């Protein structure tokens, strides 16, 4: 469901922490419905940029719009239209599965009836119906990650931000996790994902590779592989980082 409509527009984004420049004049656009991968080594500035787009932190300078709204003035409206899944685990371990769903659905202002319908649908799709009343702490990590993602999109946001969502997960669960991402993308949700797994880069429609606070390359995996004469994204990354 790709289109030419821009949902995220970033012009000259600069973020400084004292003397350290975490984001150095970033420029990019994300189109509606695409899976946009933000790649880079740890400390390259991926998370900093993502936090700015989510409204968790303010840019030092630059023009940034998310879902058609300015990040300075439209912050509160932006928050209603985005979903977010953090690096760390975002569900409450001492709450039951359905309680976690109800909590986040409630925070995003869904009605009681909608919450019930979406909870049933979600548990059914993930096959988690049998553990509905179990506490999160009793679930295996892979299940939790999938549940966390589904909860992050329960309010059908126009964009969902995923900050290294598959950290510490085995390859099979990672694959299943990406199936969920594809489903969300098919439903028209734009996916903005940061990762340092290069195999995951292949799953994205377009990727942006960051290195020391700058964008070094941007384009579809196929374009980048052609440009850098590489057979896979791993090689692309190594050539850029060199």
């Amino acid at each position, binding site marked *: 469901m790709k289109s030419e409509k821009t949902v995220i527009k970033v012009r000259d984004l600069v973020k400084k922490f004292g003397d350290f420049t975490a984001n150095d004049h970033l420029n990019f656009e994300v189109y509606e419905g695409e899976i946009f991968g933000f790649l880079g080594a740890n400390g390259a500035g991926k998370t900093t940029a993502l936090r700015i787009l989510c409204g968790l932190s303010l840019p030092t300078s630059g023009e940034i719009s998310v879902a058609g709204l300015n990040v300075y003035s439209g912050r509160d409206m932006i928050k209603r239209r985005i979903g977010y899944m953090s690096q760390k685990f*975002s*569900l409450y371990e001492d709450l039951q599965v359905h309680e976690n769903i*109800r*909590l986040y659905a409630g*925070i*995003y*202002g869904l009605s009681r009836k909608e919450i019930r319908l979406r909870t049933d649908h979600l548990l059914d799709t993930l096959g988690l119906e049998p553990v509905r009343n179990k506490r999160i702490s009793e679930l295996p990590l892979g299940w939790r990650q999938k549940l966390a993602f589904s909860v992050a999109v329960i309010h059908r946001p126009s964009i969902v*931000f995923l900050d290294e969502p598959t950290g510490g997960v085995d390859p099979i669960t990672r694959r299943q996790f990406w199936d969920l991402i594809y489903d969300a993308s098919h439903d028209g949700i734009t996916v903005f994902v940061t990762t340092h797994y290069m195999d995951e880069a292949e799953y994205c429609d377009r990727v942006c590779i960051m290195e020391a606070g700058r964008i070094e390359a941007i384009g579809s995996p196929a374009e980048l592989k052609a440009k850098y004469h590489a057979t896979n994204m791993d090689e692309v990354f190594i050539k850029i980082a060199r």
Partner: protein
Amino acid sequence: MKRFRGFVIKEFNHILRDFRTLLILFGMPVIQLLVFGYVVTNELKDIRVAVYDPEGDRYTREITSKIMSSGYFVFDGYLENEGQIEEKFREGNIKQVILFEPGFGRKLMREESAGIQLLADASDANTANLVVNYTSAIIQDYMMDLRKNSGVRFQIVPEVRMLYNENMEGAFMFVPGVMALILMIVSALMTSITITREKELGTMETLLVSPLRPRQIVLGKVTPYVILSFINALTIVAMGYFVFGLPVQGSLGLLLLECLLFISVALSLGIFVSTMVDTQQMAMFFSMILLLLPTILLSGFIFPVENMPVILQWLSYIVPAKYFIIIVKSIMLKGTGMAFVWKETLVLLLMLLLFIGASVKRFKIRLE
């Protein structure tokens, strides 16, 4: 509002499902009250003392009157025989019995040495110790005077014994103090821990990205603790009344309002601590050092501030518990109203505004 309600329900769930939290919230006030009730007392004032003086003479009367006029003790009466000692202690009014040995004055003159026995009620060991030490010092003093005047080397040897544990009058001192301490722990410590826990888990970020406003998040996390702290305040007042016979002379409504004010101050401190640190451990550490220790040491609750070095006396002025304890004592014990506690109330209100302002400012800095 609906979003907010769901969030508060979630917070209650966290508390009600964690056995340790529950234990701290509801077990601690009761246990602390009882512990302090039996252990802590420190002021010596108008301690009732009975005297057994079988053959009263000039010396025993002089010693007795010197002790009773010292300001620390009140003369309860002479005992008829030694059998009354037990009975007198049981009644619980007196803390000490002074026994002069038969023929005290004659022995003192003839043998230059006579015995006095001091029996103290060691219901709380601290008080008993103080009582005995003060009494001994007064007797020593008398002996010195006697020596100086007559040139004779008299020796009076006090013999000390501590008796049982059943007194509870310290309650007047410690109930307000324990109240301040508990409210500080529940409100400040627990709040700072619960907020930093969300930071540690990473759920705080998820909440901050959500449409909930930061102040809704903080209020949502704090609301259950306001309610629980208030229940604790009620428990303590009720226990003070029913277990320790501590009256509420003044207006109960005013007392509870002041409790609410102090709870708010403590909460704002807890919030402030949580804006400074990122882990539960640091939150606990900061709360202990910055909030609990001053509450225990500098509020005048256990150790009289008047006897401290000047610097500590100054420091005590920034301890919120100090003002709260003054307010609670005035209302509960003296039965005074707002006219007498408005200054302390004003100080607490200003502190509340200061800490909330500081927290908001810190929070904004973090965002940038």
